[in-house]
């Protein structure tokens, strides 16, 4: 068990990268998902078709394929960001399809009568969406959104496959030197578990905040 101290730095760096990847992908994914969902519930057919095509395209092709396409393919057509940004972007665009599905399920779960009532009160399409439908939809899907976010956290590990030193890759590198696989990988696993627990806690907190007071 010697030499652990030297490796804690690598481990911390990996953990930090995992957190950053998760945060950036989450922000990007939710932003894109909101736009896609707006497309998917829009009365204009081509926009709706675009929303559906987006979801089908990203969901039916593995994230690993998106990662290699982005990381190795984009530079070939003259577009390049850093490795980290590219990996985060691929993860964000991929997960956006899952967030969009969840958001749409939430919108559909709000009864049609709610919109009708809002319209009867004289609210427009956008107003009834923002003031009546979305708040209710959000309440219904906080839990599933939390689950998708945990899924996103798990998926950030795939960035290791294209060379980002996040938690999984850090564990890997430490193991190459230490040859102590059990504690190293279990340590990484525990780290993921802690992060997932934090997401769960955040979900529960949000749910309590949004709950209708009784």
């Amino acid at each position, binding site marked *: 068990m010697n030499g652990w101290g030297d490796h804690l730095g690598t481990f911390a760096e990996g953990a930090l990268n995992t957190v950053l990847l998760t945060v950036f992908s989450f922000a990007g994914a939710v932003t894109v998902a909101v736009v896609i969902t707006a497309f998917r519930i829009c009365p204009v057919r081509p926009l709706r078709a675009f929303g559906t095509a987006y979801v089908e395209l990203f969901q039916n092709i593995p994230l690993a394929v998106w990662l290699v396409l982005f990381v190795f393919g984009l530079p070939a057509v003259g577009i390049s960001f850093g490795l980290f940004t590219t990996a985060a972007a691929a993860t964000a665009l991929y997960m956006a399809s899952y967030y969009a599905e*969840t958001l749409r399920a939430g919108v559909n779960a709000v009864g049609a009568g709610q919109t009708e009532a809002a319209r009867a009160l004289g609210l427009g399409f956008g107003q009834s969406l923002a003031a009546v439908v979305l708040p209710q939809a959000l309440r219904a899907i906080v839990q599933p959104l939390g689950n*998708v976010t945990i899924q996103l956290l798990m998926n950030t590990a795939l960035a290791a496959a294209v060379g980002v030193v996040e938690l999984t890759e850090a564990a890997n590198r430490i193991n190459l030197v230490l040859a102590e696989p059990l504690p190293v990988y279990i340590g990484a696993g525990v780290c993921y578990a802690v992060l997932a627990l934090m997401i769960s806690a955040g979900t529960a907190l949000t749910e309590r905040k949004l709950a209708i007071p009784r």
Partner: protein
Amino acid sequence: MTSPLFDSPGPRARRRIRTVTVVAVLAGLVLVALAVRQFAINGELAAARWAPYGSWPMWRYLLGGLGGTALAAVLAVALAMLAGLVLAFARVSRHLALRAPARVYVEAIRVVPLLLLIYFAMFALPRYGLDLPLLWKLVLPIAVSRSAQFAEIFRSGFRSLESGQGEAAAALGMRPHQAMRYVIFPQAIRRVVPALISQTAGVVKDTSLGIVVSYAELLESGKVLAGYNRLLIQTYLVIALLYFAINYALSRLARAIDARQRLAGPGSVSSPPPARRGRGRSRSAAATSDAGPRPDRVKA
């Protein structure tokens, strides 16, 4: 129209929709044109760079990779389904000694990335004397990680049946395991078939991690091929297309079966309880999501 958000538009709204439609189509065309231009500028559109994909040897190689994907996926699905079924039975068991460990397993596996499990199989297990063949270094971690998802699907199937089913079975004098075997299980399985199929699509996506273990599935074959012919973009786009074809077909199948079951509804399977209606609404999400439904967590 599938959305509750708008009713059928009047003449003015129709005109507005027409305008937005035209603008949207034009904007889409501009985007496509820009992308094509970017490709052309960098010479990726040259016929010579695409021609190889019209030739047989290239496809023979990729079909080999597809075979590898199919083999890995079938093995992983079979194992994960079996394990998931056992776990689900354990989780609905009356004995805490069975229920608790199954629950811990499912919750723990859910928070460990598949790639970490794969690295564990690649680098940790050999050190403890278990050096699996390449195929199994991929299949076993997938089966372990997906077994938890399959368990939750089966369990949600059991739970989706109204309690009256179990009570009726008990009234007929069946013991709990008989009720499970003759009444609950056959009905529950039917209900979760769509979710099982979409989970299978998830497993197909998981097998693309063969790229880390160097098992010759589709993505790994693509990597090798691209390294050899230097047609990076073309190769990965063809690969992406193949994955899309497989998974799109699977998700359509799942949706078709789901729709048929709901049409058949009350006649063949007992009428859906409220819990199931909640599930049904978000079903489109569940049917295509490889995250799998977690109805126990969805407090709708």
